[in-house]
Every structure is written in C-alpha cells, then in structure tokens.
C-alpha cells in the first residue's frame, strides 16, 4: 500500500504536516514534529533513489488519471538524487534550528517558522518529482512563498526589505516561467514533460517554442541566481535567520538548477538548446563571469554571511559551467556539485550561525580569536571552507576534478584553467575568516570572556555535514555512480535528437559519450 504511493509521499507528508505543526503551537512540539516529518521524507527519498537506481523510472498518476492527461509524478535517478540531498539537508537544518531559532526569531513566530519550513520542503520536493510543466510552476510558487516568509522572520529589520526584493524578483521569475509554459502549451497542447519533449521535436524552428524557451530560461535563471540576475540573493541570505540561510543556500537554488537541467535535457532537447539556439556559449560565459565576479565580491565583504552568499552565486556558476559543456562528464560534474555544494554550504552557514549564537555578530571582526574559544565550530568552518576551495580529500575537490576533466575532454583548456583560477579567490575569502579566527587575539571586552562552544544540538548536524564532506571526498562511489547514471540517463532520454545531431554541428564527444 505504502510502497505503491512512494513517489507521492515526499510531497504529501510535509504538506499535510505543515498546518499540524502550526496547530501544535508550542515551539518544542512543532520542532520535534517537523524534524520527524522531515526525517521520514528523507527515508522515503532514500527508498526512491534505491528504486530508481534498480528499476529506472517510477511513474505515478495522481488521482488515477493516466498521463498525459492527468498530472504525472515521475521519479528517475536525476531527481531522486537531488531529492535525497534536499531532504537530508532539511532534516539536519531542522535539528540545528532549535537553538538557533530561539536566539534569532521571536518566540511567537517559532511554530510559524517550522510550518513555513515544511511548506518549503513540500514545494521543493514537488518541483523535483513532478513531471508536469504547469505543476512545476505551482510547486515553485509554493516553495517560494514559504521562502519569502522564512527570510522575513529574522529579528533584524533589514530582513524585511531583503524579503520584499526577493519576492519581487522571485515573482517575476516565476511569471516568466508561466509565460514560457503557456507558449509551449499554445503550440503543442500538452503540459506533460515527456509528451512535450516528443511534440516539441516536430516544431523545431517554431518561433513560439523558441520564445517559450527564452522565457523559461530567463525565469529559471532568476530563480537559480545565475550571474546578472543574482541581485536578490546576497541580501536575502545575509539577513535571513542562520538556519534559513543554511537551508536555502543548500536546497532552493540547487532545485532551480535541476529545473534548468530538466527543461534543457528532457523537454527541449540538447540539440535544440545548444546547437540551434546557441545557449551553451551564453551559459558558459555567464557561468565564468559569475565565478570570477562573485568570488571577487566575496573577498571584499565584511559580513561573513554575505561572503558565503556571494560564494554561493560563484558555486552556482560552477554547476552551470558543468552543464554548458554539453557532455555526460560535464553534466555529471554539475550534478555532483549540486550535491556537494549542499554539503559544504550547509556546514559553513551552520558554523556561522553558531558564531552568531554565541558572539551576536557575523562581522569578520567578530571571528577574532574564536579558534580557541569555539574550537569545534571553527574546525567545522575550516574543513567546509577547505572543501569550498577544493582541497583533496574533501568533496569540493571531487566536483572540481570532474569539472576540469570534463573541460579537458573537449580540449577546452581555457575553461579548465579558469575553474582552477576561481579556486584562488576561495582561498582568499575563506582564508580571511580563518586568519581572524586562528591568528588574531580575542578582543578584551566584557562579553568575550563568556564565549564558549555551542550545544551538541547545533554541533551534531554541523559535524554530520563536515564528516559527509570528508567521507564523500574519499569514497566517491555513491555520488559519482548516482550522478553518472543520472547524467547518462538524461542524455539517453535525448538520444533521439542526439542521433539527429550526428549529421549536424554537434561535437563528436557528445555522441561518443552516449554510445559508449
């Protein structure tokens, strides 16, 4: 009974649990309940990934209406992989949030926080699992609306203006996606993604389809904070409560990257997007500029949360760079980086949140001398920071390794060199914080005597992520296998248009990759 409805459970469970968390009212009860629900969602997504790896695609017809007429939930390796990362981070952040939220959010709003978190989780799972283009827009709005509320819950008033700007940008992005989906429906008369993929093939050079593609790409780019459209992200992540920054930076933008992958590879087809429309070059240029401009911006900020927010935009550049290489290896590097970046940014934001909990500031000056006072927190920050830089034995190294390999496979030396150069900026911005923490003296003020390590409830999820950073940096079998089969699957789903590309201008590498 439960087995049969497995694909629907990660969406339904948090959605039903959200109002219950609100009704529970008391902070501790809502916290326990939300954590339990998120943990269950994690177990279900683990089973989904296992099922998808063994059986291939799971299709679930909502309400018994068969696709393409009804809404279809479709789980394959690609989205089960991202779903696993999202639910895992959500559970860890919820464990962490109990203490952190008590400090940063007014007591009256605690159960509202957990409700909004669960709604956001439901929306994100929905985006990942659904196989229906319009449904994707609805879930995108469900998660976004919950996100705006989450950002605005901090005690600092600047979070309100940040949330408002995020709302304006997010709504424009989502409306662009809606326009794009409308244009696709206008031409093809279907909303099911698999059905769309087949029918779009027949209208390859239709102007309506191309306009729809442009609208969807711009809309999704706003949502995932691709370089020139990222202006909402740094203020939103800086002023949101720490737990929210940790959750959003490691899930929301990653899910939007997944949406872009899904639209390019499943719906429009790589040949159409990359060869006919020439989007590969646009994405590659934007990604490289994002890596350099935003890494540079990260080095000159004084607020450590802003540093990490700009670093997030730069890391998104790496993911988009991976998929703009148009090869299985490149896409795989992008998928691995989605997972790995969730691990490292989650740990970094949690460590910064712990510093805020004790010191009451996240300015880089506030980190002075913390290496001795909060050894475990700062060690977690250091290891996750090394991971962002890409030091061997951490996950950051794994994703950069695959990205550079994918670039070299196409003899694209410039991109490979740029990826490595970008890491130098990470050395600077992580190094500045570590320098303050380990090589500067603790300021001799009254309050600083009482600074001590945070409770285990905050340390445990942080260290789970740090250990995962190291574990997946050494034993890469799970991540690379899942990402590789996801990438291969996405390319195979598109093999029809690839075989057509044989005669076309598509580079030979792609075709070899698919046939091998």
């Amino acid at each position, binding site marked *: 009974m439960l087995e049969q409805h497995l694909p629907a459970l990660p969406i339904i469970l948090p959605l039903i649990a959200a109002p219950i968390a609100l009704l529970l009212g008391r902070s501790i009860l809502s916290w326990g309940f939300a954590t339990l629900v998120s943990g269950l969602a994690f177990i279900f997504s683990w089973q989904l990934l296992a099922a998808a790896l063994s059986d291939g695609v799971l299709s679930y017809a909502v309400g018994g209406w068969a696709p393409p007429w009804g809404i279809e939930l479709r789980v394959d390796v690609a989205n089960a992989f991202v779903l696993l990362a999202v639910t895992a981070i959500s559970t860890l952040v919820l464990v962490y949030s109990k203490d952190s939220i008590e400090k940063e959010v007014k007591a009256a709003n605690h159960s509202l926080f957990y409700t909004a978190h669960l709604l956001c989780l439901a929306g994100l799972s929905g985006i990942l699992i659904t196989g229906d283009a319009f449904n994707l*827009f609805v879930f995108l709005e469900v998660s976004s609306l919950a996100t705006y509320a989450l950002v605005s819950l901090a005690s600092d008033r600047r979070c309100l203006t940040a949330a408002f700007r995020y709302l304006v940008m997010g709504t424009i992005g989502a409306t662009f996606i809606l*326009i794009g989906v409308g244009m696709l429906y206008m031409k093809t008369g279907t909303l099911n993604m698999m059905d769309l993929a087949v029918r779009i093939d027949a209208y390859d050079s239709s102007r309506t389809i191309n306009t729809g593609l442009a609208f969807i790409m711009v809309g999704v780019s706003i949502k995932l904070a691709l370089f020139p459209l990222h202006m909402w992200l740094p203020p939103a992540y800086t002023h949101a409560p720490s737990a929210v920054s940790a959750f959003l930076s490691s899930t929301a933008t990653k899910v939007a990257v997944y949406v872009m992958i899904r639209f390019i590879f499943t719906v429009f087809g790589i040949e159409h997007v990359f060869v006919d429309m020439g989007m590969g070059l646009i994405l590659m240029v934007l990604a490289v500029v994002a890596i350099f401009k935003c890494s540079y911006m990260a080095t000159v900020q004084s607020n450590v949360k802003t540093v990490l927010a700009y670093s997030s935009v730069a890391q998104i550049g790496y993911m988009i760079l991976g998929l703009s290489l148009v090869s299985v290896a490149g896409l795989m590097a992008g998928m691995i980086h989605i997972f790995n970046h969730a691990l490292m940014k989650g740990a970094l934001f949690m460590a910064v949140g712990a510093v805020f909990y004790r010191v009451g500031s996240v300015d880089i000056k506030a980190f002075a001398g913390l290496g001795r006072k909060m050894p475990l927190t700062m060690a977690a920050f250091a290891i996750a920071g090394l991971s962002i830089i890409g030091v061997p034995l951490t996950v950051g190294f794994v994703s950069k390794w695959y990205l550079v390999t994918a670039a070299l496979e196409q003899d694209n030396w410039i991109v490979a060199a740029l990826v490595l150069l970008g890491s130098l900026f990470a050395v600077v911005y992580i190094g500045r914080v570590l320098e303050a923490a380990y090589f500067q003296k603790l300021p001799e003020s009254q309050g600083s005597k009482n600074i001590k390590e945070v409770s285990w409830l905050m340390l445990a999820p942080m260290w789970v992520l740090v250990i995962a950073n190291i574990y997946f940096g050494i034993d890469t079998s799970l991540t690379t296998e899942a990402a590789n089969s996801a990438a291969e699957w996405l390319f195979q789903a598109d093999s029809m248009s690839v075989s057509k590309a044989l005669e076309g201008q598509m580079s030979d590498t792609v075709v070899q990759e698919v046939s091998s």
Partner: protein
Amino acid sequence: MNFILDYYNYWIVVFLMMAGFYIVISANNLVKKIVGLNVFQTSVFMLYISMGKVSGGTAPIVVEGVTEYSNPLPHVLILTAIVVGVATTAVGLALVVRIKRAYGTVEENEFDNKDDAI
C-alpha cells in the same frame, strides 16, 4: 493592418506585460511595485485565456444546444495561477505592512538611507 487587428488581444497582453514590468522596475513606492506585479501577472492570465479560445465556441460550461466550447484547460490552469497571484500579493502586502512598522516609510529610497545611517 489586418495583422494588428486580428491579434488585438495579444497586443493588449504585450502592452500590459510591459507596463506592469516597467512599474515594478521604476516605482519607488512598495505598494506601487505590488500593483505593477499584479498588472504583469494579469497580462499572463489574459494570454492563457486568449489561447484557450476556440472560434465559434462558448464558455466551457455545459449549456443545452451548444456543442462547441472553448478549451477549458487554460481556464483551469489560470484559475490556479490567479490563486498563486493572490497569495503572492498577500505576502507582499504583509511585508509592506511590516516594513512600514519597522522603518516608518514604504518609499524605497528613504529606507535605504536609514539602513546606511546605522
């Protein structure tokens, strides 16, 4: 000329879309920004309803003696999108109320100055 007249509903959509977008970008007052956002979203609703129209068909409601109906699916989809739009407006206005309480103003340039002063 015929091209313009035949597609007049789409011209209205494009005009509203651009007007709404311009208001969102240029308005200084946060409530006006939300109004602009609403105009922008409404233009998309009209786009969907236009494309559901079947020439000679009536509204997709069962009536005696009518056999041709407009495509009901865009109507249903846009009903969902309207609900989403209402929810967005509600969240946006709630934020504006809280911004007014925290800063004492809803003019964007004014609260920017207040944060810089801190």
